[in-house]
């Protein structure tokens, strides 16, 4: 161990360090704004504490290896992985581990090219854009396609690994995706696994949390449920969860979007003038009209089932994204 440069003080006020870094602010906001996700929040606190202590140690001249910051977020769709990545970037920036704190979110399409010689410039371009911030790779396992040995994904992974190793000061990489697929991805890319220090698992939301999320989303848009509508929405969540392609908060947002459409149509078809309050309130009828309440979808020829037209635009239902 190297000798500290100046005689270090005997005690360090970590609380003061914490306040000065302005991380408390971000963590409190994380607690307040994100519903549920207790294990994730605890994990983020752990990481923030580690980085803070590390920074203090470094300043006192205590030998410490620079922490590896690359992370992996696993969890089902709609559990807040992207939102947390944004917050994580802010935390890292406040602590001085990344310079700019912006997030560049990409998927396979942004990294992997279509022909020989296309991948390397594409990947490097993305990496350059992400320098000084966080590179968030959604559904990272698609980078690796074992069934096709000519796939260019491997090339992207190699460039990525090289930068993750050599330019740790310039860039933090966060991989995200389903837990089981991510595990398989790491099995076939041990180099990637060994370079990722923090694995954070995102649990599914329960219905009460989803209800809370819905209320917050509506409040953001200046909408609200009336009492019957709220009860109906709880009912809706129970039905929706049992169906295929349930994507937690994302499904909630899509459902709310459709309910807003129904509400708009109801107001439009109803008598005018409309009360200001009515413009903000989603009623039970708006909720209950959902396709998910129909036990068997009506199959009358020439008559589309209620809501079908609107639901067709639900990204959850587009076939190529069926894994969502």
């Amino acid at each position: 161990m190297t000798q500290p440069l100046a005689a270090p003080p005997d005690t360090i006020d970590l609380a003061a360090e914490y306040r000065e870094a302005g991380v408390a602010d971000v963590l409190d906001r994380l607690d307040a704004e994100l519903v549920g996700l207790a294990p994730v929040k605890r994990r983020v606190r752990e990481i923030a504490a580690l980085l803070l202590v590390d920074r203090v140690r470094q300043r006192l001249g205590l030998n410490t290896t620079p922490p590896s910051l690359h992370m992996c977020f696993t969890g089902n769709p709609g559990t807040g992985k992207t939102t947390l990545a944004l917050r994580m970037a802010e935390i890292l920036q406040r602590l001085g581990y990344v310079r700019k704190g912006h997030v560049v979110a990409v998927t396979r399409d942004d990294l992997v090219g279509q022909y020989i010689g296309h991948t390397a410039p594409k990947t490097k371009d993305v990496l350059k854009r992400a320098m000084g911030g966080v590179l968030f790779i959604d559904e990272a396992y698609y980078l690796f396609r074992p069934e096709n040995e000519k796939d260019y994904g491997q090339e992207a992974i190699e460039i990525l690994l090289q930068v993750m190793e050599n330019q740790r000061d310039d860039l933090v990489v966060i991989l995200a995706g389903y837990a089981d697929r991510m595990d398989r991805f790491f099995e076939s890319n041990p180099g990637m696994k060994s370079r990722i220090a923090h694995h954070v698992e995102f649990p599914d939301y329960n219905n009460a949390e989803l209800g809370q999320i819905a209320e917050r989303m509506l409040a953001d848009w200046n909408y609200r449920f009336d009492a019957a509508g709220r009860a109906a929405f709880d009912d809706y969540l129970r039905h929706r969860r049992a169906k295929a392609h349930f994507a937690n908060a994302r499904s909630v947002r899509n459902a709310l979007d459709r309910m807003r459409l129904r509400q708009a149509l109801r107001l439009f078809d109803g008598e005018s003038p409309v009360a200001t309050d009515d413009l903000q309130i989603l009623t039970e009828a708006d909720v209950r009209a959902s396709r998910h309440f129909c036990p068997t979808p009506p199959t009358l020829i020439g008559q589309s089932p209620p809501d079908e037209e609107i639901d067709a635009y639900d990204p959850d239902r587009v076939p190529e994204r069926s894994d969502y």
Partner: protein
Amino acid sequence: MRITQGAFSFLPDLTDTQIAAQIDYCLRNQWAVAIEFTDDPHPRNTYWSMWGHPMFDLQDAAGVISELNACRQSYPQHYIRVNAFDATAGWESVRLSFIVNRPSDEPGFRVVRREGIGRTLHYTLESYAVGRRPEGERYAT
């Protein structure tokens, strides 16, 4: 003879930290940064060869510096400059350009006098290095 082209060329060579600070300034102004190199540094040679593409949407100088280091590795004995292009309507031109790499030995230029009709003299510049050897080997030591 030390070539003085672009900004900062009368100063001692910029360090990498200083170059990064200048690039950060360019990026803050949302100028697109590009790297160019040549071994024909005649003042009228406006268009140097580009190293890769101009870099758009960058937030941090680290990306440019890594490209610059790659260029230096390939062309250690060439002139390399950083250009910052402002795409704002009305400007649409290079706002900042400075040399970030130069050959270890710069023999410089000489004046060429050509006598014309009526004993008029035409003057021009000729680089010793360019006349000496073909492209790519001009500044090789």
